């Protein structure tokens, strides 16, 4: 039975990944949705012995039990959540600026100047270093007493604020850092690739028509880059919804919750407040948001671009 044998072989190839996929991706996704209809911290119900598992889970007892849509009702009335959603959206305000800077840098690098590779490598350094170590470096830069930024501002006669502990400046501080990290990173590399894919014949035609640089950009470069822009905006928005590390390390979500993001809130609910069910509910809501934005972007992108999106 060669067919059955072939299926068995395929199954063996698939097995290691499939086990992990079911246990750590598909299973948890399903579980997260189910958790939103329960209450409490599932984890603490474990190991307390006697009660047999409700779902045959060998020791898990949902003693708090099914609560229907109560978590979603709480979600709708949760003013904290609304505030943190606002914070998250506010922090995403840099996306258009980031996209513009990335495109500008890509255009400059696409002229075939000398040293292009060196520039590109240097521009990419912040992206490659991005992480806790880099955020700590920026804490030092933002330090109000002795930080580099306020020293620079002082040299032009400006008395810099205490960036990270002033509620009015904490968000802009995170945004400036985000721009510095992001503008020469993934977006710029994607734009460079996009620019190189544009058919040179289009530019020749524009030159024959006597189009200036601005008109050429408006009528050829920008529309031709639309799929790239679409892809960049979608990924940046998805990434923007999931900001956590920098808020945790640089401001601890503060001051007074000014930089608490959605994922920070989920972390807080899950780990600090031991409210796993509601954490899952907020996470599912976050997924809903990302899904909605992606679909909306996709429709907008289809209108914008005649071609297909990359990847």
């Amino acid at each position: 039975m060669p067919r059955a044998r072939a299926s068995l072989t395929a199954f063996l190839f698939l097995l290691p990944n499939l086990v992990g996929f079911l246990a750590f991706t598909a299973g948890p996704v399903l579980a997260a949705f189910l958790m939103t209809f329960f209450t409490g911290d599932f984890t603490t119900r474990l190991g307390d012995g006697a009660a047999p598992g409700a779902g045959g889970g060998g020791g898990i007892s949902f003693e708090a039990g099914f609560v229907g849509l109560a978590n979603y009702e709480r979600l709708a009335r949760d003013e904290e959540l609304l505030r943190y959603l606002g914070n998250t959206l506010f922090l995403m305000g840099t996306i258009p600026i980031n996209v513009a800077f990335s495109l500008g840098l890509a255009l400059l690098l696409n002229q075939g100047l000398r040293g292009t590779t060196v520039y590109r490598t240097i521009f990419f350094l912040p992206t490659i270093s991005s992480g806790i170590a880099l955020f700590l470096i920026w804490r030092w830069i933002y330090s109000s007493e002795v930080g580099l930024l306020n020293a620079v501002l002082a040299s032009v006669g400006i008395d810099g604020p205490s960036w990270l502990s002033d509620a009015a400046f904490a968000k802009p501080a995170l945004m400036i850092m985000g721009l510095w990290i992001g503008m020469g990173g993934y977006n710029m590399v994607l734009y460079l690739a996009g620019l190189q894919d544009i058919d040179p014949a289009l530019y020749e035609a524009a030159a024959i028509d006597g189009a200036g640089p601005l008109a050429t950009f408006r009528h050829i470069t920008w529309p031709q880059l639309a799929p790239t822009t679409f892809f960049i905006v979608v990924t940046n928005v998805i990434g923007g919804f999931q900001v956590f590390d920098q808020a945790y390390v640089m401001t601890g979500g503060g001051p007074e919750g000014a930089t608490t993001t959605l994922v920070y809130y989920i972390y807080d609910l899950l780990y600090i407040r031991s409210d796993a069910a509601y954490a899952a509910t907020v996470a599912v809501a976050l997924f809903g948001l990302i899904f909605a934005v992606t679909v909306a972007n996709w429709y907008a992108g289809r209108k914008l671009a005649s071609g297909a999106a990359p990847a």
Partner: protein
Amino acid sequence: MSPARAGPGLPRTIASHAILLLVGVTMLVPFVWTLSTSLKAPGAVFEKPPRWIPWASRTYAPLGDDGAPVEVKVLREAPDGGVRVKVAEPGPRRGEVARVEPGRLTREEGPDLHPENYPRAWRAYPFVSFWRAYANSLAVALIVTVGHVLTSSLAAFAFARLRFPGRDVLFFLYLATMMVPGAVTMTPTFSLIRAFPDLLSRLFGTDWFTRELVIGGSVVGVDSYFALIVPRLFSAYGTFMLRQFFMSVPRELEEAARLDGCSTFGVYWRVVLPLCRPALATLAIFTFMWTWGDFLWPLIVTNSNELKTLPLLLASFQGQHTTAWHLLMAASLTALVPMLVVFLLGQRYFIEGIKLGAVKG
């Protein structure tokens, strides 16, 4: 703006370079500043205005044998016109106080580098060794990288080159989960990992899974290498990306190999993998980068100091030594080294990977 081959005119070339240089300097300044801070004496960190090259002025008095200059610290001026100084040079005479005529003091200015800040920073973490965390991060990142590429390539091979019932449905399921943010899977996975030792022990009727390990942490469950590594070994993204590459390997090569007596595993191992080496390298590099920088997951699944990865250690440092910026910067720069090495060696694969959509999301 015009495409690459047209070549800009001279004024535009100059203007372009000016902007690019400005941006380049902006990108480099924080790193240079960090390096500078990491080499400063503790007091010099708070100097205003700040200096780029760590600098110090030293005072010498002729207190050595035959009046040789010895580095001293000026204490105060004595009422009789002399100056009281304390020997600052390391050695047996350190701390000795003497009186010197002011005219005999000499001053010298110069760079004042303190590379010993680095070993000091590595020893500055209470309860846990910096290198243990470094080794944890490296080990986790390397194991995850190898394992992730392996499981992804095996599954990708099945999806791309083999036929089996339910293939397309299953692949669609993989694709469907790619948009789900990590926060969604994190919550149940955390609960699952926490339940693991108990579940397994009940299942096998042993207490082996609930033990503590000699090297720190537990076998499975929270606070284990298992929790740091295993959930990261599989991803829909890796499978999807490699599948696209494996699809592009010509069928003829596979058929030729089979005619030569190659088994299915032989086709995977000797034909498809070698041909897709760039794709494997790209996935490996990105996996390494993600795992090396991973923060939220290790944050919630580790408790004991022995299990801390480097980002966790760095984050814990700041609370305790808020003013020891020179040490914190030395530790941060040390933490950046592996990623910089990986990037400089594999830059080409980075660029390729980004074009393939390997953007964390």
